């Protein structure tokens, strides 16, 4: 048995409103899987269906090899870290973490050992007598992790656990979650709307949009090989350029407003109008010189932003009808080109992501 969760044909509607439509998803043992998407995409609903807080309208939920579709949340071998922690304010840190074990009638000495171990895992063993109101946001987050993990769940569900923390702690906690995942070797399902969190953390990313799965893949695959326009736009920055493929322009050729490029499609592609995603970092830029080499075209810098480890240019191309974002790596002594400068751009057609329009 290698899968922690198997979802088949899961859908959820509230009256006439469809939150999820026919989702199939498998979560492998010990992986960190993120459910990523904008608000309203169904990621939270999907997680709540796994936890048992929502009943799917159709479909089957198998957890740890067992059909759990009709099981109540308290009967499922999953535990959740809530977005706002939901730590019990009438109990102290130790009793919060011990809550699940006590309900399972665990012997007292085992509870004590396990709770201390869980608090050590999140590096809060000295906080066991604190009341919840005496914790900072980051500490509360750790207690919430300990309270869930102490039950040794088959799957740990994390519902946007870092959303309530400020940026600095968020980065630290991301690394903490990664470390805790390695130390506990538990399956993590992580819900977020932040693609950076998803990329840093995940073994696999599930991109959701409008109640359906848009694409599943590793972070690099999601970034370099998006299969839809939505996926291409969701991860990082990109230029979406309309063009024509094949037919009049010739087999393996793409006609873009600023030139014609040879492109060998990775997937079968119909001749006709296409959208091409061009990552800003795949464009290189130089001051305009006499002649244009193969694959080069002219542009005029509209504005520049120097961000330290990168410079972002907005360049008008194709006679000013189109702006392209272009990202360069500055080096000591290199000069940022001013707005108005004439430049020649070079693209790498092999990095184009060509999508049917």
């Amino acid at each position: 048995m290698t899968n922690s969760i198997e979802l088949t044909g899961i859908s959820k509607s509230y009256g006439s409103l469809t939150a999820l439509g026919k989702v199939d998803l498998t979560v492998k043992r010990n992986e960190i899987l993120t459910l990523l998407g904008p608000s309203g995409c169904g990621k939270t609903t999907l997680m709540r269906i796994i936890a048992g807080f929502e009943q799917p309208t159709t479909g089957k939920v198998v957890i740890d090899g067992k059909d759990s579709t009709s099981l109540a949340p308290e009967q499922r071998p999953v535990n959740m870290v809530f977005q706002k922690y939901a730590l019990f304010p009438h109990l102290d840190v130790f009793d919060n973490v011990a809550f699940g074990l006590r309900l399972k009638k665990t012997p007292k000495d085992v509870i004590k050992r396990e709770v201390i171990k869980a608090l050590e895992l999140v590096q809060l063993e000295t906080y066991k007598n604190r009341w919840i109101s005496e914790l900072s946001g980051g500490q509360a987050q750790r207690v919430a992790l300990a309270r869930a993990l102490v039950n040794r769940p088959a799957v740990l569900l994390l519902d946007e656990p870092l959303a309530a923390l400020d940026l600095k702690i968020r980065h630290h906690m991301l690394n903490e979650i990664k470390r805790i995942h390695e130390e506990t070797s538990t399956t993590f399902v992580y819900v977020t709307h932040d693609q950076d969190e998803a990329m840093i953390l995940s073994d696999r990313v599930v991109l959701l949009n409008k109640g359906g799965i848009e694409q599943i893949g590793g972070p690099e695959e999601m970034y370099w090989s998006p299969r839809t326009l939505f996926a291409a736009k969701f991860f990082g920055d990109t230029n979406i350029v309309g063009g024509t493929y094949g037919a009049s322009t010739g087999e393996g050729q793409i006609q873009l407003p600023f030139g014609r490029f040879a492109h060998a499609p990775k997937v079968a592609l119909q001749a006709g109008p296409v959208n091409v995603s061009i990552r800003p970092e795949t464009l290189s830029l130089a001051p305009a010189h006499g002649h244009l080499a193969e694959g080069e075209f002219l542009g005029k810098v509209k504005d520049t932003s120097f961000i330290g480890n990168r410079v972002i240019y907005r360049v008008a191309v194709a006679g000013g009808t189109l702006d392209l974002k272009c990202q360069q790596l500055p080096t000591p002594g290199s000069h940022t080109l001013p707005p108005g400068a004439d430049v020649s751009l070079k693209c790498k057609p092999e990095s184009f992501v060509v999508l049917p329009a």
Partner: protein
Amino acid sequence: MNAVNQSKPVVVGAEASVPIKTVSIDKKALSGYLLATPPLLFLIIFFLVPSILLFVASFWTSKTFTMIPAATIANYARTLSASGFYDSLWISMQNGFWTATLSTVISAPVAYYIVYKTRSNAVLYLALVSWFSSYLVRVYAWRTILGTTGVINSTLQQFGIIDQPLEWLVFSKFSVIITLVHIMLPFTLLLLVSGLRDIKKDYLEASADLGGGGFTTLWKVIIPMAHKSIVSSFMFTFVLAASDYITPQLLGGRDAMTTGLLIANQFRSVGNWPLGAAMAYLLLAVFMLVYATLLGVLRAANLAPGKRYHD
């Protein structure tokens, strides 16, 4: 301090703290005091001062509607040595206990339904509708319903379930408590609803997630977290019902003489204000004792927050 710091963000460090301290009044605190003043004044003039006067008067003596300043505990001694006081107290405490218990217990599932199960406030408004009729109207309505020729008795007789009307339905403890519960229910419901609204559904889900079924969640999460509103709902109705003397007079039959009526009589017909004052303060002491007992019971049953379950 805050307001001052915000208005002068440039000032930094220890040396700056000296002028800050001399800078006048904190605006935030000032507006707080100003807002609190009217109700505070009202309470001082119409509650605190009369209460103190009454307390002082409880050590005075009286002669036919005139109070004579003195410093005697005779009024307390006389009350505590009269069996009538204990009889009335027993009736009052029963009225209070049963009304508060029943109102709180009946309101609890309704409040749970309103807060967690429905998004509409229809049920809440429905429960509050009874407030649109006057207290006396409601008391007389119950007299009509429960009377020997009332709705219940005549219906039961018509169906041949009983031969004679059930006498105990009206002019009894039963009729007093059922009426008081009806009157108090909206109070307890409102208090419990506002208490439960503070307990976000997340906490209930967290409990379920950790393995807690409905009953466990109720005892280990909801009641301890709603502890304050449960206690206030119980005490609020307890005090109102135990000191009530209108309903017991109209519906209580032999059980009409509550401590409230005893006290009212001292002020109205007997004219012994110092004695009435002493009785009122004794009743207050009993209420405080009930409050302390209730807290003690909840704590002993692990239903109050602030307890550690580990060493």
